[in-house]
């Protein structure tokens, strides 16, 4: 299927963002998204399904998200589609954790 991920030859993407001495992850959440994806795609879904999940992101979102935000989208899509966690559980847990912060 065609989509925004098929990016070879696309115009208008600007200069290459080259970072000096870049760290492997830019934040703790990036590291966690990577590790949770790695742990689940070894055990619950194959890596191809994970990549395809990120390609199912709506094009507007795909083009305005950072790399690990796309991974997060894929992870959330797969764990909910495979009924490991429900979307309601995620929203409820977010609400609970954000209350605990105050």
């Amino acid at each position, binding site marked *: 299927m065609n989509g925004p991920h098929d990016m*070879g030859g696309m115009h208008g993407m600007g200069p290459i963002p080259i970072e000096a001495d870049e760290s492997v992850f830019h934040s703790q959440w990036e590291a966690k998204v990577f*590790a949770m994806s790695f742990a689940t795609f070894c055990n619950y879904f194959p890596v191809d399904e994970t990549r395809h999940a990120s390609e199912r992101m709506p094009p507007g979102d795909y083009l305005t998200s950072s790399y690990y*935000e796309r991974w997060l989208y894929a992870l959330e899509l797969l764990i909910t589609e495979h009924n490991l966690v429900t979307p309601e559980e995620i929203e409820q847990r*977010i609400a609970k954790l954000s209350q605990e912060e105050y």
Partner: protein
Amino acid sequence: MPHSHHSESDIALRVRAIESLLAEKGIIDPATLDAIIDAYEHRIGPHNGARIVAKAWVSYDYKQRLLADGTSAIAELGLTGFSSEHMVVVENTPQVHNLVVCTLCSCYPWAILGLPPTWYKSFAYRSRAVIEPRKVLQEFGLDIPDEVEIRVWDSNADLRYLVLPERPSGTEDMSEEALADLVTRNAMIGTAKVYPPRSPSTITA
């Protein structure tokens, strides 16, 4: 990279919520997550690829095996690993410069180079490397003369590439270990060359 319309703190909260749910249900083990992160932050990285390159520079026979069948020659060094199961090694020469990209996403030989840098995953690199590689390389400070052919290799989930850079001149007396120290990540993707050490120093063992 595009800036998200979500705030970093919202994303971090969402990630913590998912982590706590998956841990609670026994789907992931927090200790395993820490081990995965530690491995990719500290153990798996371009030093693995540099060992392969240095060995190919000092051993003609190894280099021939590496170029003929990258997968098995890399396995000889025990460096086969996740996301690097099928490898093709392409050699830079005075006539040919190789450049690796993944236009579809971010396929990259993790076991050999670690996780890819942000620029490799950027929309700019993914879109432009295949249509204007010379301009892209100029942004990395690398001017490839017009008479040198540039070959661009588009990675995929099943097949990943490693560039064997040219051995710099003046390194004939260096040991394999000292040579490996000269090899950078970007040189193995094709966005840099390998340069000799600035002055003869302690690394010239």
